[in-house]
């Protein structure tokens, strides 16, 4: 599965991401995130906050019109992330990655992360309460994460 080169920032919809509903509404999930708004976002990490009960991953995302917006994605607790192979050193600032998740009900540029794909092909779960919504075929590949011409500048 390839993301088009010109589509550097956000792909929203069912083509990449099959909408699904969470089986268990975690204490925050049902109130905070919208399972009818799956998002796939490519960007550059600006900050990783490994905090309880939910970690936050912040990334600059450049849209097709050239404007850059800072997105935040919620993940699980640091303990959950560590068990899934994500430590404070796994995703340094400047890492380019693709995140699949669901958008916030209230904020345009916040969401909950389901999985992330790095340029070297590694994939990680966010370790949170978001439902697994992707099929294997829908997962981004490392080719999708290659920096675009804009990001190389």
């Amino acid at each position, binding site marked *: 599965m390839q993301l088009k080169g010109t589509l550097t920032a956000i792909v929203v919809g069912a083509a990449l991401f*099959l909408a*699904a*509903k*969470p*089986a*268990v*509404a975690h*204490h*925050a999930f*049902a*109130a*905070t*995130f919208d*399972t009818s708004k799956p998002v796939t976002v490519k960007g550059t990490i600006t900050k990783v906050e490994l*905090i*309880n*009960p*939910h970690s*936050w991953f912040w990334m600059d995302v450049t849209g097709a019109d050239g404007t850059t917006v800072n997105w935040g994605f*919620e993940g*699980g*607790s*640091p*303990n*959950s992330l*560590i*068990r*899934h*192979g994500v430590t404070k050193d796994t995703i340094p600032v400047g890492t380019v990655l693709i995140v699949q998740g669901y958008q*916030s*009900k*209230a*904020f345009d540029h*916040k969401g909950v992360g389901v*999985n992330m794909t790095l340029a070297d092909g*590694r*994939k*990680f*779960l966010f*370790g949170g*309460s978001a*439902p*697994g*919504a*992707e*099929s*294997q075929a829908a*997962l981004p590949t490392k080719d999708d994460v290659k920096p675009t011409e804009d990001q190389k500048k």
Partner: protein
Amino acid sequence: MQKYRGPLSSALGIAATLLLCAPAFVAAQSSATTGKAAAPSSNSAAQAAAKSGQSGKAWVMPRTADGHPDFSGYWNQLTFTPMERPAKFGGREFLTKEEMEKVFKSGVRGSYDPGSAGSEDRYGGELFNPDSADYDATTYGLSPWQNGVKPNPRTSLVVDPPDGRIPPLTPEAKARIAADRRPGGGFPYVVDDHHGGATVHADNARDLGQGTSCVTQSGGPPLIPPEYNAGVFIAQNSDSIVIETETGSEFRIIPLTPRPHVGANIHQWHGDSRGHWEGDTLVVESTNMRPDHTYRNGQPDTQKITEYFTRTSADTIEYKFTVNDPATWTRPWSAIIPMSATTGPMFEYDCSEDNNDAVNILAGVRATERKAAEKPAGPISQK
């Protein structure tokens, strides 16, 4: 919202001191064994003990220097067994081997995706969502299983009453709990329909409750495992035992020497626990729960929880608890949740205030309300 730092502060200090000493402490005590046989407290415990003997290498109960069983170490309470027996099992207490393996496999899948295809048998099928796709854990560099948890042959965690169901509430408790805003009550801030929907009542941060606000998240009594971060750390000496639950890093420091409970007007987040030995079983009795933090919304002045810890094999503690609360349930009831040995360290889970969630949840609720208000009024039902 200020995290509670009252009388527990000094206790936590003691716990921290104990934990700092834990590695050497655990090693020293684990080597102290007397070779005495275990005294299992239940059928399942007896089966486990027999099994370890059948393996050809007799298991020897690890003991502390004073001769008592040694519970020190890291344990995982994660379970895929429902608290109450699903109706489909009728009066059956144990699963067949095939059923047990199916539930376990289903639970492992569900550990990565709560609603994944193939996870429908865990928790008696009560949490399965057929709309959800599934993960292949190996895609993420994860082994299918990594927490040391073993299959549980029981159809429910509740073992008494024999029907595996929590007994009926008393009439007084029904009314009290119906008006309770805590989880399990009739008016909690979020009501999950287990099919992706939920009703949320949250006017302000206070409505989010103690768990979401990180005031207290676990710690017992009793020790009830969450669906993830279900680790438990135990440190022990002759005078006391410290039990830390992973979620929230919450401690109980339980005296093992005879001393009376605190006065009836003192109520604590984790109650007031006292431990003693009955053979090789550690028995912990807890009372003095806070009115706003009782187990299953029980009555704080009448709720008494008794926990029984029994080592049944090299890698298992049988953890049983009995809830006695005559103002809430028509009879006492008991459950068994096995604890499996796992490896440390268990990272600190310092949850403070949770301001991020408070903002995001409340904003989400307001956005949902605005969206609902914008919808044009539908036709009036003519039924």
